[in-house]
């Protein structure tokens, strides 16, 4: 028994194989974490970009008749329609907001708030239960969206909250 153990310790054959077997799980772990992190960041960035474009489209919904009288007033229903259209195109969503195969997100985004600020009285402060605060200096729109990102490697779910605002300068 003692001789067997001695010869096992002295025998160098297969050392690199053992080293490789010990190293591979760590490298795969690092690779998985890197990929997952990058995908989560990509989903958050894509959502933010799409949201920026969507709120910008929403503030184009100006009531033309009131504008002719010198009042900047947004039409909330039209603003929401513009917002939905542009968000769906940029996030590659189906008409029911479920993501298509090319979408950077895996689940339908949840629009937590779509706030149309008409005044009167500016600056106007917006405060939400999510801790988001924003000061409107002109009529505008603020939207808050929640996206759930599923990590493929760890299987963990992360809620990503994104908000964006746009105003019409008087």
């Amino acid at each position, binding site marked *: 028994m003692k001789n067997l153990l001695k010869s096992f310790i002295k025998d160098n054959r297969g050392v690199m194989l053992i080293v490789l077997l010990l190293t591979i799980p760590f490298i795969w772990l*690092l690779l998985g974490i890197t990929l997952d992190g990058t995908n989560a960041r990509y989903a958050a960035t894509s959502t933010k970009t799409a949201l920026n474009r969507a709120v910008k489209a929403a503030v184009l919904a100006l009531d033309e008749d009131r504008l002719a009288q010198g009042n900047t007033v947004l039409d909330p229903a039209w603003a929401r329609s513009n917002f939905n259209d542009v968000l769906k195109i940029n996030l590659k969503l189906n008409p029911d907001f479920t993501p298509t195969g090319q979408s950077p997100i895996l689940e339908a985004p949840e629009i937590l708030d779509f706030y149309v600020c008409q005044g009167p009285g500016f600056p106007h402060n917006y405060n939400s239960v999510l801790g988001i605060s924003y000061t409107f200096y002109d009529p505008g729109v603020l939207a808050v969206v929640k996206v759930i990102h599923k990590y493929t490697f760890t299987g963990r779910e992360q809620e990503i909250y994104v908000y964006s605002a746009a105003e019409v300068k008087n």
Partner: protein
Amino acid sequence: MLKNFCSCQKGHILLQAMIIMPILIVMLFLPLSFSVVQHKRSVLNDVLDKALQRAAVEGGVTAGVRLGILDDLQNRGFDPDQVEIEPAFYTEKLRGEIIDITIYAPGNAGALKGVGAIGGATPPDDWKLRAAGSIMSEKLP
């Protein structure tokens, strides 16, 4: 002689290292290659975002918007001759209409090629990255 060769242990670590090192290098450089691709994709999306904002004001993909995209991409390491922009022609889009822009830029360039070659994962030469986005036109009639 064969018996001697089989029983001799000299240099076996070197031999094993030679077999294992390529595997290790691929596994180390694969995430790096992936990061390079992601960085290029991110640069492309930045350029696209800037172009969309300008296109919204100008009411479409004007010559100025096109030139801006090519300049930005050249400044950030892309070859403008290999960049394709869609739509190829200017079509005026008025307030409320949707403007779509798609940019195709070479994905296999610079650092990616070198890293890919080390990692054994060099993508084909004509492989292109794609960035697409849409914005609502702000141009008044």
